[in-house]
């Protein structure tokens, strides 16, 4: 079966204070449709960089990223933005909800960015809000919600526009253990039920237990290990 996303000889180097620092060297991996892949590694090992490359936010120094048959590095900045808008959902460690939009508006934002959403798409997005248990808080602004509630809204937002790929960067890193687990289960169940591929960077051992595949980044090398 054709993988949804592929990393081909992916290398990423940064310049820091006049010196080159390589974060990823010739990484290869393939992520199948509907699977949950987890990235582990020490802080600063390059997990977030890999997610940024997968989403087209950042460009590789060498090699290529292919998502749904599209070579991201061959696209222009605008094309990559539009690709991301249509096909990628994000969940961040710091929730990153838009403070000037209500909970409902935050969830609808990716749909709005794609274009005028159909009534069906809107209803589906709002159903997601019910599924994360926050339908009654739809008119609230993010600063009125707890951390766990904010991350649940972020999960709904990441899935609202029916993306192919969901990228999650330490989604439980800012939550207590119990809340983190709740969010994790919610994220896992919703993405699996929708048949989405999810790549998640994490330190949390609980996530590893849920993963279909686990990748580790160490000394700029990406290697798969047993879950």
């Amino acid at each position, binding site marked *: 079966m054709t993988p949804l996303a592929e990393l081909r000889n992916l290398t990423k180097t940064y310049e820091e204070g006049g010196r080159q620092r390589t974060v990823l060297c010739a990484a290869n991996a393939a992520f199948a449709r509907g699977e949950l892949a987890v990235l582990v590694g020490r802080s600063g090992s390059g997990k977030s960089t890999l997610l*940024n490359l997968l*989403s087209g*936010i*950042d460009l590789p120094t060498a090699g290529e990223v292919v998502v749904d048959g599209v070579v991201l590095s061959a696209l222009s*900045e*605008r094309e990559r*933005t*539009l690709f*991301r*808008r*249509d096909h*990628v959902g*994000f969940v*961040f*460690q*710091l929730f*990153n909800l*838009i*403070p*000037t*939009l209500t909970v409902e*508006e935050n969830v*609808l*934002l*990716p749909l*709005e*960015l*794609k*274009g*005028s959403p159909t009534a069906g798409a809107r209803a589906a997005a709002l159903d997601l809000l019910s599924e994360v248990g926050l339908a009654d808080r739809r008119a609230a602004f993010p600063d009125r919600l707890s951390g766990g509630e904010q991350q649940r809204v972020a999960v709904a*937002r990441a899935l609202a526009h029916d993306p192919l790929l969901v990228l999650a*960067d330490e989604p439980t890193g800012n939550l207590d253990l119990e809340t983190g687990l709740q969010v994790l289960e919610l994220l896992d169940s919703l993405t699996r039920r929708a048949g989405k591929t999810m790549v998640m960077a994490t330190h949390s051992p609980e996530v590893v237990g849920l993963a279909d595949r686990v990748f580790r980044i160490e000394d700029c090398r990406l290697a798969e290990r047993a879950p």
Partner: protein
Amino acid sequence: MSTALLWRSSRRHLVRHPWQIGLAVIGVALGVAVVVSIDLANTSARRAFALSTEAVTGRATHQLVGGPGGLPDTVFRDLTLAEGLAGRIAMAPLVEGYGALPEKEGKGRRVLHVLGVDPFSEAPFRPYLKPGDGGRSAPAIDLGALLTHPGAGVLSAESARELGLRLGDSFHLRVAGADRTVELAGVLEVTDEGSRRALADLLAMDIAAAQELFGRAGTIDRIDLIIPEGDRGGKLLGRLAAALPPGAQILRASSRSQTTEEMTRAFRLNLTALSLLALVCGGFLIYNTMTFSVVQRRPLIGILRALGATRSEIFALVLGEAAAVGVAGTALGLASGVVLGRGLVQLVTQTINDLYFVLSVRELALTPLTFIAGAVLGIGATLLAAAVPAWEATRTPPRAVLARSILEERYRKALPRATAGGLALLLAGLLLLIPHNLVVSFSGLSGVILGCALLAPVATVLLMRLLRRPMGALFGVLGRMAAGGVVAALSRTAVAIAALVIAVSVSVGIGVMIDSFRQTLSRWLERTLQDDVYVTVPSRAGGFVGADLDPAIARRAAAMAGVVRVETLRRVELATPEGPVRLIVLGTDLWGLARHELQQGDPATAWPAVLDGGAVVVSEPFSRRHGVEPGAGLRLPTDAGPRLFPVVGVYSDFASDQGLVLMSRATYRRFWHDPLLSGFSLNVARGVDADRTIERLRAAAGDAALLIRSNRALKRISLDIFDRTFRITAVLRLLAGLVAFIGVLSALMALQLERMRELGVLRANGVTPSQVWQLVTAQTGLLGLAAGLLSLPVGLALAAIMIFVINRRSFGWTIHMQVAPGVLLEAFGLALVAALLAGLYPAWRMARTSPASALREE
């Protein structure tokens, strides 16, 4: 694509930061208000002048004028009967002057423009004065009364209503210091707006009544002519020229209004440039506000980019916010501009009356063009100022959080480029000062200002490096943090400092320029005004020429005991095809002439040549304006026809920016038959009390109304006029300063409020509220100190440019630059106080906020 949610988010951001947006709106509003009000004042003055000229000139194509004494009224009769001219050229004789109405409590002086006409010749020229015209302008003129009643006159119906006058009523008019009675013999009912304005304050009289009113029996000022275009007109002009008496000349009617318009061009341009300066300050304010708005939301923009918002959507979002600020500010500014304009038009009119010609502006001319220009400038400047931060916003990488250090590093890396750009702009600005064009010079001045603004960041870095150690020694770790913080947040602090440097340096520049000008003028007055008593005829109408004085009074004064010397003065305006030439006639003796400082020419030979040799000297502005230098000849229209006068010197003079020609009484009497004086001055013997002399002089003058002033009083009045002239500059300086102050206030407040979390961390680590006060105050104080120190050299450079380039090219005066420490201290204090005030609110808010909530505000 729909981005309604992005716009909604943007709108809520604006609503959640009312103080920041409110200050930006006020900044734009002030900038627009200043530009619009100056334009309204200028336009109103020009329109009032154009309408009154149009009303007085009527349909005349040419004007026949004489010398200072006018034309004998027989010229009109002779020409109308002359062979080949009679019935072929429409002619109308005219006597023109001004009279002041008695001042009313709380209301300013009102001057009527008096037009003495021959009603039977008027029809082709000024139809509104045609008796019995029942058209659009239907005059209710009692021709019999107008011709037969002494002092009968006609006013517009509106003026009559305003003055509470009815047909047959009498009123007083002060002419040449004496009260004259005028009877209202008719009113002009006009229906259209243009005529209504044109006829405001115009008093039409029969020519004989006007001659009597002005004491000019037997003479007229000019004869208006209608001469057809083409060959026929050329032939008629030739015939007319042949029939003219010596000293009379024919001028195109349009040349008069053009030259008068030209007179005030530099004055108006200077005002416009100053008003644009306020808009530039407003632009900086928008730039500040939008930059901070972008900086504050950089992480948010990063999220939006990660979610798929494109660069163009982000760019449009930021520009949209700016447009909202621009539209609100512009609307407020246009309304305030009208209010401000009402005040400024009085100041502009006063200056025009003091320096140029008699002008009465009764209302603002609210032209749509002014409002359109104001709106385009306001919204355009806002969008332009926001374009840079909007572009910057699109460069925000689509990552969740971009480290502040990376941002600052990027800014510091750009510093050499900004510095090089600043130097290039500075150099380009200096080069633009070379061509002798006023508009280009102002562009050069703007280049220098912006170049210096771009150099502010690098200068700040160097200054903070110098201050870090002494600040540490004085205030410990907090002192070092304050100095380090300014450099660490250079991307924000540099903009605030640059804005403050611009505002304060402009304030220093204008302050030093005005101060230098005043001191130069004061020294010139000391040198020129050396007599004990000065006598003129009061002329409330103002203008250069003023009222005439009977020479017998001067002779009586000379005969008074204790008077050792009398110097006579005659001021006349000679009409020439190139515009009026202002002539000053002085010179009873060499001593009186030589008190004028010669800039070019040898005093030892020049003054005797002026006194007895028929030569003239010209003032510095005249020399610059007309390119006349010693050795040249100056052609002037005399009563015996045009004559070339040798120019033997250029002298310092600040009485008129139009320039003056100075000649001796002996030369004047040789070529002009004008026995009248405009004034005289006298010296009293040592030990004689000048005030007692003034009393005796009043008694000797009899009924003649004289304006007698002591030396000291005249100097004080001259300086008062100077101060009045620069009042408008001071108002503009204040407004530009206010705009900049608001800009800096908002920038520094935003900067400190942005540091809430950092300050929260400090509080959590044991820094007390009072130490937070100290830290915030020290940092904003350092910003003020940096801006204050940098603005002094920049301000002095601006002053030098204004004095030696702009002023010299605008008005032709050489001003000696004087730097009063008070102006510098005031400017330095302004920068420091602005910065310290800006720190008050954040410091107060931080001291009241618990560290926990500050830490939560991410």
